[in-house]
């Protein structure tokens, strides 16, 4: 049985379909989760997709954080279940305090949409084990509030503990501290990523198929852990 990966749809989610498709292309079974669900329906991992949950009102991700589905998700994530937050999903993970720091308005004030070169800095997370350390990839980036900020002590700790998962190369598109494009929690099961690997899984629509390895990684992690076969 393929691992079951839940993809949460919030009001205003945009990329839930693409995330579900990426899960399937990587060989997993995608399970649609609704923000109003008080259960995760027994999934093995969860993707919080990109978009504009609750219209980005208040702060990006601030209202989604209090959705019914987030209570069991936060518990499961603390218990080791793999969770990937992409773009708005990353913002929700920060608002939920599953990841440190916050994402603020791009320093240019412009919404940025481009194919972005990244370097994978850590392959010891549940979502990046299929990469090689230092591997360079190109995936789409599209955000208005993608500037990663945290205090210097937190940034130093992230670097020292190997929790910077991906960094922007060539250009820092949004003013993120230390060119950070993605981070993980201490255990490595929760990853937040501002760029969009789910849009780079097919040659027809993506700049590359580099994004697929994130989804293949979690399937490998789950099978390796005996959670799914």
């Amino acid at each position, binding site marked *: 049985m393929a691992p079951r990966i839940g993809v949460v749809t919030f009001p205003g989610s945009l990329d839930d379909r693409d995330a579900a498709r990426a899960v399937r292309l990587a060989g997993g079974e995608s399970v649609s989760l609704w923000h109003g669900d008080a259960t995760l329906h027994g999934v093995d991992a969860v993707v919080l997709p990109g978009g504009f949950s609750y219209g980005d009102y*208040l702060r990006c991700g601030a*209202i989604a954080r*209090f959705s019914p589905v987030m209570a069991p998700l936060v518990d499961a994530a603390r218990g080791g279940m793999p969770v990937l937050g992409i773009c708005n999903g990353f913002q929700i993970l*920060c608002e939920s305090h599953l990841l440190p720091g916050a994402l603020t*308005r791009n320093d240019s004030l412009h919404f940025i949409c481009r194919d972005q070169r990244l370097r994978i800095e850590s392959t010891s997370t549940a979502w990046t084990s299929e990469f090689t350390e230092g591997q360079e990839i190109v995936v789409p980036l599209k955000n208005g509030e993608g500037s990663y900020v945290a205090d210097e002590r937190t940034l130093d700790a992230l670097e020292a503990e190997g929790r910077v998962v991906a960094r922007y190369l060539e250009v820092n598109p949004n*003013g993120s501290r230390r060119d950070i494009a993605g981070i993980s929690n201490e255990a490595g099961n929760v990853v937040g990523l501002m760029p969009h690997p789910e849009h780079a899984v097919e040659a027809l629509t993506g700049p590359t198929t580099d994004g697929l390895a994130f989804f293949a990684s979690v399937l490998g992690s789950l099978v390796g852990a005996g959670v799914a076969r």
Partner: protein
Amino acid sequence: MARVVVDVTLKPEILDPQGQAVQGALGRLGLGGVTSVRQGKQFVISLEGVLDDSRRTQLEELAATLLSNPVIEDYSLSVEDAG
């Protein structure tokens, strides 16, 4: 009726590109000597009845979790009318 005002501002060390854009516009519109603009949010919350201690505590908690993000923002809560 009670009324509570919560002001949320970015912490001083957080870059505020919107505030900077407003600062630029103020200068272009002829206002000299503007050294800084920081943009924030204000929530004016009207409540039925009287604002007792337990509701006030609840509001403080919500100001620190929902209305502001303590990683990047500070808030101040003032009771304009306790009802």
